[in-house]
Structures are given as structure tokens and as C-alpha cells.
């Protein structure tokens, strides 16, 4: 197994086509990351249709590369123009932009590049070791455990950073309901189809995701048309000095652990990881006063954590079929579309492909480091592409991408409808990621609940007698009610 894994990972380096693909996708990922509003999730949603004719490993490598490179690239604009290219880079603006204003933009970017690379590579290594181990545990799972696990995954939506807990849960339930559209899997009864037989097999994820992430973002961006961007000039990206390394190595290591752990939690992602990484860097720092004024520890804390979350988020995605973030929800769809069924099967029958994907993520981390160091200044200019040119192009890519998935115009209309739904949801403070996660997990919840009921002759409470299922349900309960209970206890103590 170990030798097989090593040789599969090494095969990425000797495959010129795959290397070229990762190189090109890294450039694209960095461009997507620096363009405010686009981000890893929108980029992956737009690119998914382009991967349909690719080999499965190449397709997932493309999506994973977009994920890691765009997550890093958000920091370039966060530092240079105080506008995070991705939400995961929001915490980087707190200290990155003040440092750039002091005339040390190159140093700030150097810290961000190195921290992101260490975070990304650390999480890929954890992914390589943790995923097969978790897959062994998952081998024991039956329907009650899977049902409880998906409930746990849905409960974690409550703690996604955007929106509030209640709004996120409403979005998640709406997503689960969307998964019930079409013929019911056991009885074949048509649900909410209104005579439209193109919906017989249910809503397909690709057009819905393009709508929710790309088209809704287009409408959100239409509000920023008049925004004026101020840039900070930069001479060159500087590598951190030995003094800098001494100051930040503990922060980077801490954030690597935080980011990977947060990433592994279902439905959490790089944004939450970077916020926690930043606040922990501040909490442990000896120079707390520097934070907010250009602290390199602040930049390192946020950047190492958000890239560490990328590898972490791939663990539940590939092992359990539960997305660790919005972008991994799209990667999960990519896996399904290409016949790579996430779960134990992937780690027993298709080990080579799994490790080739991990190897691709490793290579992508190294490539974005080189690009960050040598071409960040160039990429920063991309962010100045006028919105009135960029977003009409995104519209074209969205509608053609939605059509290309199945060759059905219905998918184009669905993408537009869900784009408008996503926009109104975001307008009123609802995040669209819970809808996407709910849509993916919906089928798993219902099917496993049905199977569990059959297993226990209709006695649903018997699910609670299964130790692992009970554990996940307790976690779900704590995830939902924990914050309320703890705040109540704290109030009582005060």
C-alpha cells in the first residue's frame, strides 16, 4: 500500500501532460483568486464542465489545483489593494494591507507565500496519512452510521462563518429538499416534477452550483460597479529573513494544525480556518499591539491556516462523501461525474488514482509558491480588469458550462433561476454554501434513513443504540445547541 502510494504520487512528476495541466491550472487558479468576487468555489464551478471529457485523475487534479491556488491567491489582492480575492483571505487584510502601506508589500507577500505553501503541503501530508485510516474506520459504517454522519455534517452548517446559524440551517434544509425533486428512489413516486420528465432523475448538481456560486456572484458584483480600487506599489516579493522565520515559525505550525483540523470538519472551510488561525496567532503573540498595524505573525497565522484547510477539507470529501467546504462540494460532484465514488471503495479499489490526486495537490502547492514569489506583481494587475468586462464573460462561461454538462437547455434555465435565488438569499444574509451542501447530502440522509428504518423494522430510536451513530448524533446536538448552552452557563456563572 505504502509503496503503491509513493509510486502513484511520484507518477505525477513524471507525467508531462499532468504537470503541464497543473501548471496551466495554477496560473488560472491564481488569476481566479486575485479577481475579487470570483474565488475558488466560483472558479471550480465554472471549470467543472470543462473537465467533463478529461481523464478522471486529470479532472480532479484540475479542480483541486484551482482550490489550492485560488485560496492562496486571494492574499495577493488582500495585501496590495485591501480587497480579499477570496473570503478565505479576509483575515489577511487585517495586517497585510497595513504592512503594504508601510512600503513593505513585498515582505508581506513573501510571508503570505511561504506560510500558504507550508500550510498547504502540511495538510496534503496529513491527507495522505489520515484519509486511508479514516477509510478503514468508515469500512465499518452501515446505514445508521451514515445517516448520523450526514446529520452531523448538516448540523455543522450552523457554524459556517457567513450568515447566521438559523439562516444557514434553513438554507441547508432547502438544499436537502431540492434533493427530493424527481422520482423517489425506493418507490419511484414522482415528487415536485410538475410533469417535467427531464427532472425524473432529480436536479443535477452542476447547473445548480453554477447558478448558486457564479451567477449569484455576478448579481452581487453588480452592486460594486462604482467601487474605486486603490493599489499599493510594490518593488519585488521578498523572502522572509531569518529573523522573520524565528518570529513566525511557531505561528505557522499552530495554524497548520488549526487549518487542517477545521478543514476536516464537515462543511467548514478555509474562511473559518483563517479567522481562527489569525485570532490564535494574536492570542499567543508576544507583540499583540502590532496586530492590525502590519504584524507578520497575523499574516502567517491567517495564510497558513487557510491553505492548511484545503487538504483537511479533502479528507471527509474523499473518504465519506461529505464535503468539507463549498469548493470541495464541487470537487465531490467532479468525483461523482467521473465515476470515482467517494468512500471506502475509492481507497481499496482505486488507490492509485487517489494518490495521484494527492500528488497533484502537492505539486500545485509548490507551483503556486513559485508563481507567488516571481509573478505576484504581474498577477496583482489582473485584479484591475474592469468589472464591466469580467462579469459579462463570467455570464457566457456560466450559461455555456451549464448547457455543456448534459446538452439540455433546461440546465441553463436552472442555472439562471438558482442564480437569482442565490442572489436574493445572499441579499438577505443567507449563505449559498449550505444550500449546495444540503443538496449533496440530501440523498444520503434520506436513503440511509430509509435503510435504517428497514433494518430496525420501523423503530427509528434503534439508531441511537448504534455507538458510532449515537456519537455522531451527540456531536450534531452539541454543534447545534452547544453554543447556546455554553453561553447560558457562562451567563449563570457571571
Amino acid at each position, binding site marked *: 500500500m505504502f509503496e503503491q502510494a509513493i509510486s502513484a504520487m511520484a507518477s505525477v512528476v513524471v507525467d508531462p501532460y499532468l504537470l503541464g495541466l497543473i501548471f496551466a491550472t495554477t496560473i488560472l487558479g491564481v488569476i481566479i483568486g486575485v479577481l475579487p468576487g470570483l474565488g475558488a468555489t466560483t472558479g471550480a464551478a465554472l471549470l467543472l464542465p*470543462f473537465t467533463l471529457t478529461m481523464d478522471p485523475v486529470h479532472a480532479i487534479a484540475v479542480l483541486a489545483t484551482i482550490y489550492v491556488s485560488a485560496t492562496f491567491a486571494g492574499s495577493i489582492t488582500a495585501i496590495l489593494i485591501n480587497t480579499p480575492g477570496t473570503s478565505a483571505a479576509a483575515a489577511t487584510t487585517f495586517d497585510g494591507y497595513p504592512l503594504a502601506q508601510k512600503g513593505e508589500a513585498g515582505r508581506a507577500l513573501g510571508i503570505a507565500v511561504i506560510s500558504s505553501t507550508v500550510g498547504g503541503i502540511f495538510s496534503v501530508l496529513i491527507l495522505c496519512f489520515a484519509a486511508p485510516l479514516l477509510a478503514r474506520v468508515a469500512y465499518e459504517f452501515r446505514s445508521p452510521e451514515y445517516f448520523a454522519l450526514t446529520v452531523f455534517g448538516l448540523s455543522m452548517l450552523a457554524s459556517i462563518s457567513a450568515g447566521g446559524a438559523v439562516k444557514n440551517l*434553513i438554507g441547508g434544509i432547502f438544499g436537502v429538499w431540492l434533493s*427530493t425533486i424527481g422520482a423517489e428512489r425506493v418507490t419511484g413516486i414522482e415528487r415536485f416534477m410538475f410533469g417535467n420528465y427531464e427532472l425524473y432523475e432529480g436536479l443535477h448538481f452542476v447547473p445548480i452550483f453554477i447558478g448558486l456560486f457564479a451567477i449569484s456572484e455576478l448579481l452581487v458584483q453588480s452592486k460594486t460597479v462604482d467601487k474605486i480600487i486603490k493599489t499599493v506599489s510594490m518593488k519585488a516579493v521578498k523572502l522572509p529573513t531569518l529573523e522573520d522565520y524565528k518570529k513566525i515559525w511557531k505561528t505557522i505550525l499552530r495554524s497548520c494544525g488549526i487549518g487542517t483540523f477545521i478543514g476536516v470538519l464537515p462543511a467548514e472551510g478555509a474562511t473559518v480556518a483563517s479567522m481562527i488561525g489569525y485570532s490564535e496567532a494574536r492570542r499567543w503573540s508576544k507583540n499583540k499591539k502590532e496586530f492590525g498595524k502590519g504584524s507578520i505573525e497575523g499574516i502567517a497565522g491567517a495564510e497558513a491556516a487557510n491553505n492548511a484547510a484545503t487538504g483537511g477539507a479533502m479528507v471527509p470529501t474523499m473518504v465519506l462523501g461529505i464535503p468539507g467546504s463549498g469548493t470541495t462540494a464541487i470537487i465531490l460532484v467532479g468525483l461523482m461525474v467521473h465515476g470515482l465514488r467517494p468512500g471506502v471503495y475509492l481507497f481499496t479499489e482505486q488507490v492509485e488514482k487517489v494518490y495521484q490526486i494527492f500528488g497533484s495537490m502537492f505539486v500545485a502547492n509548490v507551483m503556486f509558491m513559485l508563481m507567488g514569489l516571481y509573478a505576484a506583481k504581474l498577477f496583482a494587475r489582473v485584479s484591475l480588469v474592469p468589472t464591466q468586462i469580467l462579469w*459579462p464573460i463570467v455570464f457566457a462561461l456560466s450559461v455555456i458550462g451549464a448547457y455543456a454538462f448534459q446538452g439540455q437547455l433546461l440546465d441553463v434555465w436552472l442555472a439562471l433561476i438558482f442564480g437569482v435565488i442565490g442572489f436574493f438569499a445572499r441579499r438577505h444574509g443567507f449563505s449559498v454554501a449550505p444550500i449546495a451542501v444540503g443538496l449533496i447530502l440530501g440523498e444520503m440522509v434520506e436513503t440511509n434513513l430509509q435503510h435504517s428504518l428497514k433494518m430496525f423494522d*420501523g423503530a427509528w430510536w434503534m439508531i441511537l443504540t448504534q455507538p458510532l451513530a449515537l456519537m455522531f448524533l451527540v456531536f450534531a446536538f452539541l454543534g447545534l445547541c452547544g453554543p447556546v448552552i455554553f453561553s447560558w452557563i457562562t451567563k449563570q456563572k457571571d
Partner: protein
Amino acid sequence: MKNIYLVPLILSIFSLAVIAIALQLDTSPEMIVGDSMQARSFPIFLMILKLILIGILTFQFYKNNPKPVALEKYHTWGSMFLFLLFYLLTVYTDMFIGIFVVIFLMSILWGERRVWVAFLTATITPGLVFLLFDYVLKIRFPRGMLMNLYYG
């Protein structure tokens, strides 16, 4: 009624409508469903859960009294109107005519003053995407005025 309660109200009406539709769904014979649940049960359960959450959300709104959302400028509503225009043009003429018109008008609507830039964006983008999907990915586009000329 305050505007802030409009969202919970719409969500509640939607949930009740889903429950009403779900109650009209066919039921399966006992021998097929067995000890499991009917096709209607799960969506109804979801909507009841959602109604409970909407209740909590309304209570939160009542306690916190959030500011009503400001109305967007014409760029946003105009873009949505362009989606409708895209639908009509795709159905009655051709998808690529729809894309060209929408890109061009969207660029102008969003503030592009150079008409030739908007025109070039509207021409080159769909052209390149078409070449990529048609030649490289071998995807056939829906028939319309332009595609009929191309496919014959």
C-alpha cells in the same frame, strides 16, 4: 407589517405550499414501503423543521430589529432583466445570439463607455468558448438560427 418580516413570511408560504403539494403525492402499497417511509414523509418532515427554524428566525428579528436591506441600483435589476432577454433570444433565435446581446448590453449597463470594447468582448468571448467546446470537447449546441447554418 415591517419589511424585515417579509423574508420569514415568504419562506413560510413556500414551506406550507411544499407540504400541501407533498400531501397530494401518491402513496405506495405497504408491501413496497414496508417499515420505511412514504415518499411524501421526508419532504413534509423537512418543511416542518424549516417552519420551526423560521419561527426562531422571526423571534430573532423581533429581538434584534435588523435594518431593512437597501434596494439595489439599476445595474442589478437590469442584469436580471437581461437574463430574461437571454431566455427569449435563446428560445426564439439562437443561444449564441442571446449570449452576444447579453454580454454587449451588460458591459454597457455596467458602465463600459467604449462601445467597441463591449462589442469585441461580446464577439470574442462566445466565439472562443464555442471553438473550445465544439472542437476540443465535442459538445453540440442547441439548434437555432446560427447553429442551423453551422450544422446544416
